[in-house]
């Protein structure tokens, strides 16, 4: 699925990286706990979260994530958005709860990120 399709499915507003929404993404994860997100190592994973602080961007940086979706219409502060922009991330805000966002994306064909545990090979689909 392309990021543009995600924008469409969620009726989201793109905050940064509009010019990059044609790129493909293959999976998503959904959490407010960045420590848990750090366990999902998958380059093209989309992160859906309700947390809007700088650590979301730092986490995305460490994992080479491509796209951040902030649920419940949340908009991070400018410094957070600028840091995300610098890393080349697409950032959007969706006017729906995290549950609904995840449900709509799943329904549209996006699946949970494979969980990779360090040196182990990527596992199967995960329910996150």
């Amino acid at each position: 699925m392309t990021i543009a399709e995600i924008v469409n499915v969620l009726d989201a507003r793109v905050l940064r990286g509009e010019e990059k929404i044609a790129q493909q993404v293959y999976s998503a994860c959904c959490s407010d706990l960045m420590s848990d997100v750090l366990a999902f190592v998958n380059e093209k994973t989309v992160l859906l979260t309700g947390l809007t602080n700088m650590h979301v961007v730092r986490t995305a940086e460490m994992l080479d994530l491509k796209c951040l979706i902030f649920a419940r219409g949340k908009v991070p502060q400018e410094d957070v958005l600028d840091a995300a922009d610098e890393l080349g991330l697409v950032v959007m805000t969706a006017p729906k709860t995290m549950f609904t966002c995840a449900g709509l994306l799943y329904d549209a064909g996006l699946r949970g990120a494979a969980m990779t545990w360090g040196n182990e090979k990527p596992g199967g689909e995960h329910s996150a």
Partner: protein
Amino acid sequence: MIQTDYPIHHGDYTRAGEASADIKRQLRQLGVGSATLRRIAVAAYEMELNIIIHSLGGSMTLVVDNDGIKLSSRDEGPGIPDVSKAMSEGFSTADEVARGLGFGAGMGLPNMRRNADQFEIESVMGQGTQIRMLFLLT
């Protein structure tokens, strides 16, 4: 050989991730592949956060030599009372500040161990904790 030291301060959440981002940048410039780079970046970030959240302050060191990539940390205490408990997934003593920022899932040390090719931890109450990780260059 490359060696870089990064001082890390207790409670310095605004700069959390800067050392790890620099480590990642340096290693990318050396041509480390993206999969290995992500493992190191995740482990480095967890290491950095652990010092910020749990210690009284400390430092991280990146060394690149013929053995591979080495990340180590040492802090000024207080030490971990039960290391094996701290190594178990889901166990966390992070405070409300850390939890409010999205940390404290109890995945820090387990995630470091998982991502590193070799992982060692030593902790002495009242003195501090030292962690050493090795990442092999394949």
